[in-house]
């Protein structure tokens, strides 16, 4: 499987796929209040509504590879059911409605109330993930950095250095793999259990760090040589503007969030 290339050339999406055409900051800013509020909800309906809103927006406004759709279609129901059940097992029965007992094993009883609480917790987590997907699947790292530099006035020296460092990740992954096999053939596999495992990983750290520092130094020299940091700002070929549509999306999403919360407050189930 080829992993998505975060650096590939930008594809121009048709207007209906509006999520891709929005400023990454608008998408993150729009969902932040909802995410903050979700943390404090305790019911089933509020996170469910936000989950449905997020999925609806993704279906209409995002053009995603079919693998990701598959993950969403299978993963979300699966995650909800597994988590509801596990959380239900963990909850303290004293805290829940014990009017309906689902089944009992010895002294243990599973109540419908526990399942309801588990479901609420699971939905809360899954709706947070779904809201995160709105920005996460439709923006690229470089665009987010550009938007942060252009709108939030984050110094470009920090933003672009972070982008350069992002390139290190696959390199270190490969290097770690080589180090592991090297240590294995030298007989460092010795022993099982967490202690031996920890010692083994400690052994990988030194060569990995030595390589990383050397690599970082070289990259820094290469960036210096190409005038990085010469001026307080740099030419930007890709503008990531904050347009009217970004403002409209932001306000509409905030308004929807407020409406859902008010509706839920005034109509308790």
């Amino acid at each position, binding site marked *: *499987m080829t992993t998505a*290339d*975060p*650096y*590939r*050339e930008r594809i121009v999406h048709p207007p209906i796929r509006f999520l891709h055409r929005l400023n990454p900051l608008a998408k993150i800013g729009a969902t932040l209040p909802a995410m903050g509020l979700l943390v404090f909800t305790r019911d089933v309906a509020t996170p469910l509504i936000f989950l449905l809103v997020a999925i609806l927006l993704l279906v209409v406004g995002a053009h995603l590879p079919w693998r990701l759709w598959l993950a969403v279609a299978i993963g979300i129901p699966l995650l909800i059911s597994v988590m509801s059940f596990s959380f239900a097992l963990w909850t303290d029965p004293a805290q829940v409605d014990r009017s309906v007992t689902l089944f009992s094993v010895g002294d243990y009883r599973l109540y419908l109330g526990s399942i309801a609480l588990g479901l609420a917790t699971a939905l809360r987590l899954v709706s947070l993930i779904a809201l995160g997907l709105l920005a996460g699947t439709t923006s690229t790292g*470089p665009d987010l950095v550009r938007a942060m530099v252009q709108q939030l006035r984050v110094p470009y020296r920090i933003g*672009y250095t972070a*982008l*350069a460092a992002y*390139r290190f990740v*696959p*390199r270190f992954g490969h*290097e770690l793999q*080589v*180090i592991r*096999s*090297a*240590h*294995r*053939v*030298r*007989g*460092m*596999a*010795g022993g099982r259990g967490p202690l031996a495992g920890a010692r083994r990983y400690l*052994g990988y750290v*030194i*060569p990995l760090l*030595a*390589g990383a520092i050397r*690599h970082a130094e*070289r*990259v*820094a*020299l*290469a*960036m*210096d*040589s*190409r*005038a*990085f*940091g*010469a*001026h307080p*700002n*740099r*030419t*930007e*070929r890709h503008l990531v503007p904050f347009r009217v549509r970004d403002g409209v999306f932001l306000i509409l999403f905030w308004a929807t969030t407020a409406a859902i919360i008010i509706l839920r407050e005034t109509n308790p189930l």
Partner: protein
Amino acid sequence: MTPAPLEVHGLRIRHDDRDAWTPDRVSFTLREGEVVLLLGPSGSGKSTLALALNGLIPHAVPATLEGTVLVAGLSTTGATVARLSESVAMVFQDPDSQIVTGTVMDEVCFGTENLLASVDDVLERAERALRQVGLWERRGENPDRLSGGGRQRLAIACALALGSPLIVLDEPTANLDPAGIEEVYAVLRELVAEGGHTVVLVEHNLDAAIDLVDRALVIDRDGTLAFDGPVRDVLLDNVDALLTMGVWLPVSTLAALRLRAAGVPIPELPLTPTELARALDAVAVMEPARPAMDPVETGASLDERPAITVQNLSVKRGRSTLLNNVSLEVPRGEFLAIVGVNGAGKTTLLQAIAGVVAPPRGTVDVGGLDPATADVRALAASIGFVFQNPEHQFIRMTVAEELAHGLEIARLEREEIDARVEAMLDRFGLRAERDVHPFLLSGGQKRRLSVGTALIAGAPVLALDEPTFGQDRERAAALLDLLAQLNAEGTTVLVVTHDMQLVADYASSVAILSDGELLSHRPTAEALAGDALAAAGLRPPPLAQAMRLLRNHPGWRSISRLADLP
């Protein structure tokens, strides 16, 4: 009058963690359009000098600098590296560590964007630079998808886009395979032919660079400027001094020197394969060459079982086939070189043989052992593996412990372990470093230690993955001499390598891989003369190239080794 592109006066540099000044009081001036080769043995300060030419020393690297470097009349100590980048551009050795952004296009624009050029200007310069190195069509791609040669061409494009009249290249091909080296030199040749750029090239691969440069500067071991002049005069008038200094000469020159000593009249020493062929064709009668089929003398004894047997080995990773049905027999005492272009499956084969990545059961036999099922101790006693980067395999805190490790896991007696460790320390010249942390050794010492640890458990087979990658000729030769010595004492040696002249001079047989298939496994001379080499996308070593050009001496055409010359 416009100032010279580069003026260096009395330059001496000392790194903060070292005592010696290298380079030491070096002075020279470059004229516009000159192409200069900077030569010197390892430790002479070539790369340090290169780093001083755009102000990285003293601005970014902790070192003390005396004397002056003027780039287009601007003193490097007074100007920032960023300001200097408008007058001097750098290309470094490692293509991976000079890529910052995510697409070829962004990469080329990176420098000019930093200099606040207008968007139109940025794009125009990027297009011109990319077209010049032949990467314009691939501008939207992630640089990771380019080959090593491609990425290095991209680095050159980035230097060109900056528009600096002076370009400094520090060992630009040391990390590349032969195809990559050719790509990079094709681009440089065009660049030089076009004119307009002054080029400083630090390079030890003289065979690739020689027809490109006008002038050579040689720095000796103490860091002082030993020779400065037209490249032909510098190299050919000072042959003995250069060889003593540890500077490598082009293989064609070395071959001619050897032939001269054997009485072949060669009035003018050649620098390139073409010149050598012409010089030899001019000689009327030459003694017939020794039969090129003579195997290199090794510790091989044919009556024993083979050291390694590989039978129908296939290795798949995901959906791609890395090795397809490879069968191979390596007799004891052989020095086998495994060659092929990048991605041909060389390292995969070596790792499967040594059990670094377990092969399918029953496909590999190393001295009666199946690496697929053998435990680490038994495997370490039958085959030692040396990784490309020795640091990856160091696991202990001192050199002595590192050597003892393999014996300790084999649960040998303490006295036996100590005796063997002491013997190894002497054998590999590491006695003074006994209690040093392996990571603090020099590059050459690290390499020797990794060979020592691979051998200490008594393994009769030694497998090395690109042991000369990224090293200069001197260090490479020191390692190869060590391997040849071990081989003469009976150790079977397997190396994966890109360096074809090294293959020609040291290996007794060659396995050529292409796309995961074994194309041929034959004695070196036959392999280098055969068609499989070209079929695998490889080039014959420089000496073989020269000999193939011979018209008057058909008997010499198949020679590829210096040792085969009279």
